[in-house]
């Protein structure tokens, strides 16, 4: 039985200009101890889908799903109070900006031990002991001293370590890391990723890694879901994704990796993710797709077979070339 089961999760926001669908029928299963990555550009609804799962979206969001199960509990039917007992303990999340994700008015120690108090009911001495243990676990030197420090006295990397310590404090079954390295220096990024992977292995927790960095995906995940404009466009094992992408968007993402570049000018995907007012009628990627045909522009594609990574494409790629394509193309 999967630890997390999401089927057809959609999130719409009420805005002044009407309804905006940020997440469109996303499905995801995660087994215990598994690492899954969600990739896509900014605005593709990666974070929103996970925030919806955690119940952290503002009231302007409407969440619908066929299935939303975590560890045997139906998240669709449980009360807000019951959800609060799950998040922060069994299911935890870390965010992109460590410097702003910690409260400037409270000490590291206070923020670190809050979850221990409400979820595990530990007393003061136990909490302090556990806090020191956690800071040590995430590689913060002199943890005893750091407990009394305020977030602004630590660096971004250190703060992200504190965030990680905070999220794993109650030994969660699932950790969602929302672009945990994006705001950090490149040298620190690798350290934080290594730390997350080490902890994932030690605690045998499932890890969802949200990122737009294909390099990060390659180093960490076992399975990948590629998301574009709120839709999942492809789901694959990491190996297959890099060697044989089935969706043109995945291919374009991989082609824009600097290390894969063959020309002197770095390739990029022209255009931006469509927003509320410029959503295409057909395939959402069609305006930016090099293979787009009249069919793509007029009719939304259906999901391809698992052999094609469930690609949301009229002409899923195989070996780098579109299949059933009406015209001749050269790779």
């Amino acid at each position, binding site marked *: 039985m999967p630890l997390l089961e999401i089927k057809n999760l959609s999130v719409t926001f009420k805005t002044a200009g009407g309804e905006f669908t940020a997440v469109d029928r996303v499905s995801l299963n995660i087994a215990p101890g598994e690492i899954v990555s969600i990739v896509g550009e900014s605005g593709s609804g990666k974070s929103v889908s996970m925030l919806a799962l*955690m119940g*952290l979206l503002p009231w302007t969001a409407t969440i619908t799903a066929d299935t939303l199960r975590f560890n045997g509990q139906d998240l669709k039917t449980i009360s807000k*109070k019951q959800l*609060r*007992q*799950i*998040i*922060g*303990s069994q299911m*935890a*999340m870390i*965010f992109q*900006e460590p410097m*702003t*994700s*910690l*409260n*400037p*008015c*409270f000490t590291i120690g206070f*923020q670190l031990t*809050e*979850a221990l108090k*409400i*979820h595990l009911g530990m007393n003061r001495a136990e909490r302090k002991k556990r806090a020191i243990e956690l800071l040590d676990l995430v590689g913060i030197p002199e943890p005893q001293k750091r407990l009394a420090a*305020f977030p*602004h*006295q630590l660096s971004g990397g250190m703060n992200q370590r504190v*965030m990680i310590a*905070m*999220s794993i404090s109650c030994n969660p079954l699932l950790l969602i890391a929302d672009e945990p390295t994006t705001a950090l220096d490149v040298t620190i990024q690798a350290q934080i990723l290594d730390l997350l992977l080490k902890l994932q292995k030690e605690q045998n927790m499932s890890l969802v890694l949200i990122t737009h960095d294909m390099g990060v995906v390659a180093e960490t995940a076992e399975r990948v879901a590629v998301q574009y404009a709120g839709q999942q466009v492809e789901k694959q094992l990491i190996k297959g994704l890099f060697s044989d992408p089935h969706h043109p968007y995945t291919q374009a993402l991989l082609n824009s990796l600097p290390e894969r570049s063959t020309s002197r000018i770095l390739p990029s995907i022209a255009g931006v993710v469509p927003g509320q007012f410029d959503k295409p009628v057909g395939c959402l990627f069609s305006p930016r797709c090099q293979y787009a045909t009249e069919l793509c522009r007029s009719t939304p594609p259906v999901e391809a077979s698992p052999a094609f990574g469930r690609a949301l494409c009229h002409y899923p790629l195989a070996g780098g070339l579109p299949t059933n394509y009406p015209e001749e193309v050269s790779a």
Partner: protein
Amino acid sequence: MFLYFIRKLGVILPTFFGVTLVAFVFIRTLPGDPVLLMAGERGMSDERHAALMAEFGFDKPIIVQYGLYLKQLAHGDFGHSITTRKPVLEEFLTLFPATAELSLCAMIIAVFFGLPAGMIAATRRGSVFDHTVMTGALTGYSMPIFWWGLLLIIFFSGILGWTPVSGRISLLYYFEPVTGFMLIDSLLSGQEGAFSSAVSHLILPAIVLGTIPLAVIARQTRSAMLEVLSEDYVRTARAKGLGPQRVIGLHALRNAMIPVITVIGLQIGVLFAGAILTETIFSWPGIGKWMVDSIFRRDYSSVQGGLLLIAAIVMFVNLAVDLLYGLINPQIRHTD
């Protein structure tokens, strides 16, 4: 923290000096002089007038008078009231507890209702409650104090007869002041009914005086709260599984309080200004009413001394507020 204090004090001293000058010049620009007003309608001869002016030292050039006044102040002497001949400081200290009690109660009302109203309005942005609070705040802020005071007197004292019209306590009760705060003294006196009499005298003026600060605090709390609620650390707090009370009442409020505290500090000055009108309307025997009377009597030394002391109190309260920031916001504490 000590250096921070010293630096703030360095700002206060020049300000205090400026206030002496303003107070000194301002009262002398008013037409008439204290001697003429003391003589009343009967008037007095020019010789007698000149003699009295000389007695008070008003015949010397203004600049000399100011110099002498500063010298006096440097010795901690605020001078004597021209009309009552009592030391200004003594008069001020006798009347100040009444104003302090009124202002404190007004502020308590303002904070006690303004803070939660702003908080709830922010968490339910766009709701009926939010609109009601914001409309109410705007109305309260725009309403002239004297008119609002009279409305309340007409309704509660006149029509309903619930509260007395003026004074601090019913004439039936008498006891020696211990703290100067009528609420506390009436309790200490042990006289039956004294406390409730003091409360019924205090409640209307405190509401009138507290209305503008209440409106300002509610609006400021709402906007500060709205800003803070969209911060990442509030999301982090919720992601921990904390309940809304803890997220809003602790994580968000602590941060939202920083601008709100500033506004509360600034309202102290507003309170003293408002006390002048409120005390006059309710015949409240405090320094506001005393200042108005002193101005009418051209009691130079009382007006000067009163203005200086009020300014000093406002400045020191604001200094205390500044120090309070440091306690709430560690970032300020560590950079200064």
